[in-house]
């Protein structure tokens, strides 16, 4: 916990409001703060110096701030994508443009996504226009079971995307990890155990490169994981694998674990809750995609939440994977589940929290991001309707209190092809 607090303090330095931050108040809107509570009608959100000053009903608008009429609109914190590859890829299938993994690298844990992130990627621009303001960017494990170090970014239209570099390490267990770790789970667990021991030795100055399996850089990178200074995101699906990873803290008590995937989490929800380990789950994954996901159900998140597990939405199947903008739709589906007998879903407020405050807290920015709490960073989105409904979109996106442009390749194509008239000139002149 001390480590976590230190990280937050460090991170805060990077969160100083940029000069262009506007002071504004959105009035008469339906406001949801992202903390799990229900939305409040006829409410106001006040932002000054890049921070939320207040949000709620019956607030006075401070003098001298721009007033934005939010009548008929909804206001929420910006959407926080709990795990994604935005900024690492232009076109998934064009390998030259895809930096999500480095399968032939001699390094694994030492890989760092921060320098590879491109804030001008169209995928990122499209996500921004849809109200995603922050994201945890993760590399895909490929050169070994460790994928490397992920970063927290903002999606602002500026040259400085990094909110926090090297925010977490990622490791794959289960069937994915088995494939990368030598062919079976026995290989994966041996690899993981050895790597953590070698990292521990390296940190203690007892490093012998000749006998080590890890490269020096990888051993160094895993030091903060063993000490708990850096979170370890563990991709795991099967109930038995989840139980096993929770036991890992017997040998390495400082590990700051976050579980990814977790299709069978509902079977071991009490264990996860007791361990206090948060989860980033695929919300609607209900197919036995592999033998490690036999019990997959859309009720997984509802059941884990009911057991007291802190759950964010991420890693969504159904559509091309890199469509974090559909997290809102998926959260809405979890609300719909509450009306199906035998199913477990979430309340509207809880569903919004899975894509705002909870992923922010998991990433180490609880209270600062993904919330409209006083003092929070002013990532704020005004929507034309209920943000969890499929038809709703942002009408204004603010990051750090700065209103963001929402044009991108897609919006330009839309305008060019609004009609197909080429009677005067070819479409190429229509721009």
């Amino acid at each position: 916990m001390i480590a976590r607090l230190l990280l937050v303090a460090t991170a805060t330095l990077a969160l100083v409001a940029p000069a262009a931050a506007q002071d504004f108040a959105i009035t008469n809107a339906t406001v949801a703060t992202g903390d799990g509570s229900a939305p409040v009608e006829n409410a106001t959100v006040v932002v000054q110096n890049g921070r939320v000053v207040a949000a709620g009903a019956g607030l006075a608008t401070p003098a001298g701030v721009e007033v934005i009429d939010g009548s008929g609109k909804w206001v929420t914190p910006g959407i926080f994508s709990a795990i994604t590859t935005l900024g690492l890829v232009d076109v998934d299938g064009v390998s030259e443009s895809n930096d999500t993994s480095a399968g032939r690298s001699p390094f694994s844990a030492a890989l760092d996504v921060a320098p590879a992130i491109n804030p001008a990627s169209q995928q990122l621009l499209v996500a921004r226009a849809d109200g995603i303001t922050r994201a945890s960017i993760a590399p895909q494990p490929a050169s070994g079971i460790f994928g490397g170090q992920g970063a927290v970014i903002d999606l602002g239209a500026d040259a400085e995307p990094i909110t926090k570099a090297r925010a977490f390490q990622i490791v794959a267990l289960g069937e994915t990890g088995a494939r990368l770790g030598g062919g079976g789970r026995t290989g994966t667990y041996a690899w993981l155990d050895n790597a953590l021991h070698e990292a521990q030795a390296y940190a203690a100055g007892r490093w012998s490169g000749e006998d080590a399996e890890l490269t020096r850089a990888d051993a160094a990178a895993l030091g903060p994981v063993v000490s708990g200074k850096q979170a370890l995101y563990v991709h795991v699906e099967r109930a038995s694998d989840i139980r096993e990873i929770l036991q890992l803290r017997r040998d390495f008590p400082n590990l700051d674990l976050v579980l990814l995937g977790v299709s069978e989490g509902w079977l071991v929800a009490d264990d996860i809750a007791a361990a206090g380990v948060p989860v980033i789950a695929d919300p609607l994954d209900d197919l036995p995609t592999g033998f490690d996901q036999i019990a997959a159900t859309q009720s997984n998140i509802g059941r884990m939440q009911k057991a007291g597990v802190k759950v964010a939405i991420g890693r969504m199947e159904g559509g091309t994977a890199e469509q974090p903008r559909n997290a809102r739709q998926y959260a809405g589906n979890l609300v719909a589940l509450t009306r199906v007998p035998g199913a477990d879903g979430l309340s509207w407020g809880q569903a919004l929290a899975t894509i705002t405050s909870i992923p922010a807290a998991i990433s180490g920015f609880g209270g600062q991001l993904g919330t409209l709490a006083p003092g929070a960073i002013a990532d704020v989105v005004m929507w034309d309707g209920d943000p969890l409904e499929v038809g709703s979109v942002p009408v204004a996106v603010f990051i750090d209190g700065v209103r963001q442009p929402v044009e991108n390749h897609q919006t330009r194509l839309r305008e060019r092809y609004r009609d197909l008239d080429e009677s005067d000139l070819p479409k190429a002149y229509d721009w």
Partner: protein
Amino acid sequence: MLGRTLIALGCAMALGACSTMDGGGGEPAASASTPAADAGTPFPSTYERYPGRPTALVGATIYDGRGGRIDNGTVLLRDGQVIEVGSDLATDGYDVVDATGKFVTPGVIDIHSHLGDYPTPSVDAHSDGNEATSPTTPEVWVEHSVWPQDPGFSRALANGGGTSLQILPGSANLMGGRSVTLKNVPARTVQGMKFPGAPYGFKMACGENPKRVYGNRGRMPSTRMGNFAVNRQTWLDAKAYAAGDRKRRDLGNETLAGVLDGDILVHNHCYRADEMALVMDMAKEMGYKVTAFHHAVEAYKIGDLLRENDVCSAIWADWYGFKMESYDGIPENAALLWKSGACVVIHSDDANGIQRLNQEAAKAQAAGQRMGLDVPDADVVGWFTYNAAKAMGIEKMTGSLEPGKMADVVLWNGDPLSVYSRPEKVWVDGALLYDAMDRKRRPVSDFELGQPGEGDVK
């Protein structure tokens, strides 16, 4: 991650089928199961409808699938058929379901699915969707690959309201083989699922997949021009076969001749506008018709051409950017096509997406709305019901709520274009095969028996 890899492969496999625009000519014809319709063809359908009770859905908002909407209406189902749709209908002799505040639509139809040929668990042993060993395999029939125990069928029924679907071969090759249209009814055999009287489809693919797959093996095609050359020569050979006495059995040419005869519908996986235009010209040169382009992320650039050629676009709401040829996908694709008067079908190509075709259509509608194109809700419902049926050649039997048609029906617990709504009951040919209120009225595949989560809500 792993999911992404699998999805990318899935996309690579996607093929398509789609036919014409919603038009007239839908005089309701034969309903329910008539296995005799397939007599004389190999592997004939053995599907027969399950028993159902005469049922009246009363007080619902009804979308008939063909652009009609009735508020506070009644739908009568009996003997596997839709008997009547209207207001203030007598319900004597029917079990009455109070549908006040609920919605009724035709059963959802997915024109592009790989359930059964790429089933879950997604293990290599199950990967039967693409005979990619040759750039043209018109001789394969995908029904020989469909595993009826794929758990995905039940998810499509319970969460998606899916009652009919076309299973396609993959898109690694230019000609992937015959598709099969299924009733979404659990069965021990694929023949027990085959939609009686449905025409066959034929899967073709243009663009990146064929040239990549075969080019990487050092064989033709390795370019888009190679794609066309192989296609055209194959068609020329097929035309020679078709013009002959056809006595010598030749599985590939029999299928191609069926396309040239107009009996088998071409479903062509294609992303780029310029390529679709070339394919339509190739079809004219060779004397066949493309019924639908599948995926067609750039269809909005040629809505006029697609309308003039009477070709449907079977599309996603918002997939884009996962391969070079999908880079110009935009969420307004469906609405712009609608504005052009071209045929729109919303498809899934995905075992997850098939569970939410209604939501995908609603997203596409909303994107249109934002640019000032107001597609009526009743038309949007047609994107995943009647238009799909039309493009699959089964619109005289299903796809809309009209007297005499198959009683393939979904009762939704709210507006199907809202994220907060779910199917409450689903009938196939008048048989109640899913009921959210009755946990036993939910299919469980053989694979799931004795496994954790058996019979769960999923």
